[in-house]
């Protein structure tokens, strides 16, 4: 063809070699010879494998960390979480497990350096109890949070992306599950199953907690599904799993992460509550079990002397959950491309202005 009348200025823009380049691009299909044809117009040179690797690390490890660190809530939150993880991994090796009668009974906290948080009515060290209760607690939290997130993401994405009958059935089921009050349901199941493994306890506790999140994810997927770039990917013949992974999930990540942290918190709340009530069988040390013992056998409610026994696990729970909330409040920025762009190319001071010019633009339009 080429009979189209073009404006002169666009006519003389492409260098001569470009016609070849484009023509070459035009025969992409199965044309392996193109690998030998260099593109004369490329000025910036190509990247070595190492550069590319470095870029990936920078993009996926360094940048998120920098972003996290730049927000005080995320900073404090991750420090607290880190402390608990250390307590559950390193702590259990350093601190001896509690033994009956290792100290006097009901030593008050901060009096004896060998029992920093005092002892209970059997002379067990309370600090050691708290430390050694951490690993099963962490296992429970991880199991519950992972279960919630995976279920919610799978059901929500499937329902939202597939639509139609699948959606209707899943959502009807989901809505029912969502309406059933969680704690009583968990109690009933726990009574029947009497779970002992912390992993199983975590899953039982979140048995229907994922339903609300699944619905939220579904409605987000419904919105994302309509985005033009998702349709474009579909039209390019990219497979559904690929589209879900590359186009849908990144948009959901901030949401998923925040909810992962929140469900971790509700696992702590529920499990400690159930151990405290004595509904879950006492198998290992647990903060809830400690509360139960001090409450039921220690008679903590009636005297001041045992208060520390009751307070220590409660404060432990509150601090961890405080850390988790702070963390979740500060993390959604990690996935924000506007923030990412600033942090991946920190060498470029002008990048930071993008948000500002956007701001002006809105002012002008407003």
């Amino acid at each position, binding site marked *: 063809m080429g009979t189209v009348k073009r404006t002169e200025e666009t006519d003389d823009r492409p260098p001569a070699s470009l016609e070849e380049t484009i023509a070459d691009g035009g025969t992409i299909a199965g044309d392996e010879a193109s690998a030998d044809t260099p593109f004369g117009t490329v000025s910036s040179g190509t990247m070595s494998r190492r550069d590319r690797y470095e870029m990936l690390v920078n993009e996926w490890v360094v940048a998120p960390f920098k972003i996290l660190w730049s927000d005080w809530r995320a900073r404090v939150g991750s420090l607290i979480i880190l402390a608990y993880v250390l307590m559950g991994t390193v702590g259990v090796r350093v601190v001896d497990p509690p033994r009956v009668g290792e100290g006097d009974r009901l030593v008050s906290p901060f009096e004896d350096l060998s029992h920093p948080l005092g002892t209970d009515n059997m002379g067990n060290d309370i600090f050691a109890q708290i430390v050694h209760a951490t690993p099963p607690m962490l296992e429970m939290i991880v199991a519950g949070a992972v279960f919630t997130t995976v279920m919610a993401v799978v059901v929500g994405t499937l329902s939202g992306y597939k639509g139609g009958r699948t959606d209707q059935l899943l959502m009807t089921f989901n809505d029912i599950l969502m*309406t059933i*009050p969680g704690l009583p349901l968990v109690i009933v199941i726990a009574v029947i199953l009497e779970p002992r493994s912390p992993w199983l306890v975590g899953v039982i506790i979140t048995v229907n907690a994922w339903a609300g999140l699944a619905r939220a994810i579904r409605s987000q997927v419904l919105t994302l599904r309509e985005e033009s770039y998702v349709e474009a990917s579909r039209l390019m013949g990219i497979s559904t799993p690929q589209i879900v992974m590359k186009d849908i999930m990144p948009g959901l990540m901030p949401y998923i992460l925040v909810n992962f942290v929140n469900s971790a918190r509700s696992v702590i709340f529920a499990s400690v509550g159930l151990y405290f009530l004595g509904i879950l069988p006492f198998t290992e040390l647990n903060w809830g079990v400690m509360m139960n013992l001090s409450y039921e056998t220690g008679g903590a409610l009636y005297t001041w002397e045992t208060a520390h026994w009751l307070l220590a696990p409660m404060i432990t729970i*509150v601090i961890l959950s405080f850390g988790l909330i702070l963390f979740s409040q500060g993390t959604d920025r990690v996935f924000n491309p506007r923030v990412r762009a600033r942090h991946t190319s920190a060498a470029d001071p002008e990048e930071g202005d993008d948000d500002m010019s956007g701001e002006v633009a809105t002012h002008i339009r407003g």
Partner: protein
Amino acid sequence: MINKYYIERTAQAVFTVFAVVTMTFGMIRLMPGGPVSYIRSQLVQQQGNQVDMEQVNALVEVYTNVAPDDPLYVQYLEYMTSLLQGDLGVSMFYNDPVTMILASAAPWTVFVMSISLVLTFGLGITLGAVMAYIEGSRFDVSTTLVSIFLNSIPYYVMAIVLVYILGYQFNWFPTGGRVSSEVATGMNLAFLQSAFYHAALPIASLVITGFGIQALAMRGNSIRVLGEDYIRVARLRGLAPHDIALRYVGRNAILPMYTGMMIAIGFMFGGSVILEEIFAYPGIGYYMFRGIMARDYPLMMGAFLIITIAVVVGIYVADLTYGKLDPRAGSGGGNREAY
């Protein structure tokens, strides 16, 4: 369009109750360690090994409304029929009809929970709106921090602290019961006073640990709404600031909180199991806990069912009022869909 919304919500509520009832039937009957084997083992303990299966089955039928030797579908039908007649079986621990026990307990749980709900959201919404209006101020920042902190305290921890300090140590509040035994039951002032007095700590533990997250949600919603064009247009139209605050910001910021409200309803009623045990407050949760401890399956399942129905009804009522408040409900454009 609105009619369709109501019909759909009603159907959803009815279907949920039906599904839960079916589920409880399944759990009672099919799970290992269910009431049948429990009752049998009880009899074995009492009478030695000379247990007559007929006797066990008869007892099971008395307690649970289900005859274990009938075919499954007959059991199911019998169970459903007795439920429809309001018969939840007989408590093995109290030896009273479950319906009777729970009927006397339910109003108290509803009383505590509805007041907690109203206070939590009333406080949260007011505080959140104020925070949004003075966004970035010292008050806003510190309230945000306090809200996050209070939200990290489990309600039962707060309950223990309150009952420990204000109940046992200072004796300012009762540590158990619904009302003082000295007042006459009825709608008299002394009775109401006593009822509120006894409910004060349970309500306080839920409200103190719950309002923060609602305040933060309201704050976020309000800030978003304050940036909407229609607020700017309303100001240009010369509407009074309090009109804009209530009819524009308030209304549009509160609507998305209905989701939080639905979740809170389930959360609070479910939490009654722990809360009422700590305060020895004989509501449904208290009896459910008693049922669990005594392996009293009819009581436990009955309480579970009643709590679920209470939540379903609560959510249903919230849904209906939402439909009244948001004209977009049912047309797919409602805010609630966004949760």
